[in-house]
């Protein structure tokens, strides 16, 4: 589904390598967790996948479509939720959702059904008539999640999705991820919350200083680690 080949990105005229020659392949129907300490290169990698940052070298393709050669086709397969929900403060919630749906050209019936379903699930249906500027951080997060989900993406990419969500919504989001994968869709997300990764990810990659240190299922990661313990210990050991 998502294939990342040899991508690198450096800042400041090549002096700082944020991402250093990364290779990853994520299959359809997989929930893939992307872990790493602050400044490891998680967000940079994600931004390159969704088309916000051009890699210095390498190739990213989604379902065989090159992200940088055919951006439109690639983007129509992706939905992206950034770590900071910066969206149009002056639009009403419903207007924003409708705008996104227009861009993905989602048919009316499907639009209504999905907006009703997800806004109810995240408990923001009562706020849709208000402008987004009046929302709390968590509510903004939820409206961005809703806008990403109504497009019914093949590849769902989330940057630190659990930050700012209340426990119930975080639980619901995990359920949604699981269900999407059962339907053959792919979820790729970065997180600091190791329990989340441990519980729901099919596979995990740990990135540190721009390089992938390890990739695999929880079992495989445990085998590689000296002490076969929790993900927390593995993480601490590997990123030292």
């Amino acid at each position, binding site marked *: 589904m998502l294939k990342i080949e040899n991508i690198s990105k450096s800042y400041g005229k090549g002096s700082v390598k944020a991402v250093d020659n990364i290779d990853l392949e994520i299959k359809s129907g997989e929930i893939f967790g992307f872990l790493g300490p602050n400044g490891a290169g998680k967000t940079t990698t994600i931004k390159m996948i*969704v*088309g*916000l*940052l*051009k890699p210095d070298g390498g190739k990213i393709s989604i379902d065989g479509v090159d992200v*940088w050669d055919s*951006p*439109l*086709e690639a*983007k*129509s397969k*992706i939905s*992206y939720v*950034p770590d900071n929900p*910066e*969206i*149009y403060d*002056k*639009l009403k919630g*419903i*207007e924003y959702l*409708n*705008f*996104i*749906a*227009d*861009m*993905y*050209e989602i*048919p*009316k019936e499907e*639009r*209504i059904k999905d*907006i*009703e379903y997800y*806004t109810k699930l995240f408990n923001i*249906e*009562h*706020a*849709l*008539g*208000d*402008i987004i*500027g*009046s929302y709390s951080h968590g509510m903004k997060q939820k409206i961005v999640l809703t806008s990403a989900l109504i497009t019914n993406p093949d590849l769902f990419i989330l940057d630190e999705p659990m930050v700012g969500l209340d426990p119930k919504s975080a639980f619901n989001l995990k359920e949604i991820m699981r269900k999407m994968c059962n339907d053959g869709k792919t979820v790729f997300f970065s997180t600091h919350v190791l329990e989340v990764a441990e519980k729901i990810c099919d596979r995990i990659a740990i990135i540190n200083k721009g390089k992938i240190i390890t990739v695999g299922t929880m079992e495989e990661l445990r085998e590689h680690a000296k002490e076969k313990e929790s993900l927390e210990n593995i993480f601490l050991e590997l990123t030292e």
Partner: protein
Amino acid sequence: MNKMISLIKVDINNTYGLSTMAHSLKDKKSRWRFIIFGILMMSLIPTYIMLIRALGNMYDASIQIGQRSYFLQMGIFASQILVFVFGIIYVMSKYYFSNDLDQLVPLPIKSSHILGSKFVTLMISEYLTSLPIILPFILIYGIRGKEGILYWIYSFLLALGIPVLPLVIASILVMIFMKYTNIKGKKDLLRIVGSSIFLFLILFIQFQMQSIMQKVIAGGDEFYINLAKNSNLLVMKLGVVFPPSMWGTLSLVNYGNFSGLSYVLLFFLVSIIGYIIMILLSEKIFFDGLIGNMEVSSSKSRGSRIIGIKDSIKINKPYISLAKKEVKILFRTPVYLLNSVGGVIILPAVLVMSTVTGDESLELLTKVLGEFPHFIVLPAIGMIVFLGMLNSIGCTTFSREGKNFWIQRTLPIRIEDQIIGRVLSSLIIQLVGIVAMIGSIFFIAKIRLGNILIIAILGLLGSIPMTQIGMIIDILRPLLIWDNPQKAMKQNLNVLIGMGVGFLYGGILTFLTIKLFDKIDINYIYIILALIFILSSYILYIILKKLISKQFIELQ
């Protein structure tokens, strides 16, 4: 007092981006910006010189009628009126809609300190309006009349003091206006409608006064006798409208004797009293207008606007949806509303109305226009086309996205839709301008439906390339990092560059039209203009398509 000084420092730094400027001067790429800026500023010099020459002629005329002082008065009066009109817009966005208020209000500072510091920064901005106007008047009067040293000292003081009173009056009016329109629920609508009416009212009163003055000045047989007797007659007549302009003039005219000194003192005394009144008033009413402003929509009212999802969902083509989003944000962000929408309404009204003063000139004008309607149709088209750039929509369209730009870049939007949608949003605002234009024209002359259609169609067609030129500039160097919408529109260099290029494009077309004017039938001119507009729109569209797809990939 220390608080006040540090507030002023921070505000000046923030408003003019001094720290950022210092930082970017070190950066090679940004240094180019300053060079471009310099070149642009220099390109305005020839026009300015022409203007000064014309003023020189006016000075001669005022000597001929023995009213040399009237020349100075016109300069002072014009700069004060402009400071006042701009002041109302500036004051509203600076006192009530700037983002730093969120941080200032919770601090233990008096409202008079907040307002006082903002007033000082505004004064500096207003010098940019008032000095280019008043300086040529002072210089011509002083140099041609070989005035003494005291004249220059007084002039210097007056040049500094001129914006104070108009800005004080604008501040007080806006504060009162904001206090009484701060009504829950209907606040936004009330303020938009209110401020439009308010501005029109001011303009209307202004023109009424002007025409009354003209009548008074021109009327009666004794007028000429009085004119000969009193060399300051015209000054006093115009002084009725706004006395401080008269005091300023008289102090400069009589700088050699005691009355000059007393007029200077009077001028500054009244300015200071005005400032104190404004500060005292601000303690009482500033927060009243402000507080409700900052709560976007309170949590209590949440749920009161529960909407039916089914009824609110509308399917639109992507470009229509994009245009709608743009227009909504333009209307809902006060800074954008005042600058773009306000601009296209006010500018035509001011320009059209200011060409007419007094009934006699009106009669003559109506007569001429009845026979040669294109004398009004062509300038009207030109005005609308220029508004296509002056509305700043094209040249800030990507900058306005700011931190939300990621949305545009990650969504599967075709570049064609990006262009059409954004041009469309500018045209919608232009339509408002066209209505304002035709409405103001009706004040002075009745024009036929056919001509209205020509103005509308050619105006809109011409607005397309203007918007596209702006978009090209903006996509090449979008200003995406800002915390205050003011920076995206008012402090965006792209607006200035856009105007430079736009004026060049418009200037060439104006030149062409004048050349063709008496050579071919007017209808052919309309057709030629339409063809040029369509052709340039198409060429710019192709360029934009390439640039946007490149920049959407390259930008970081």
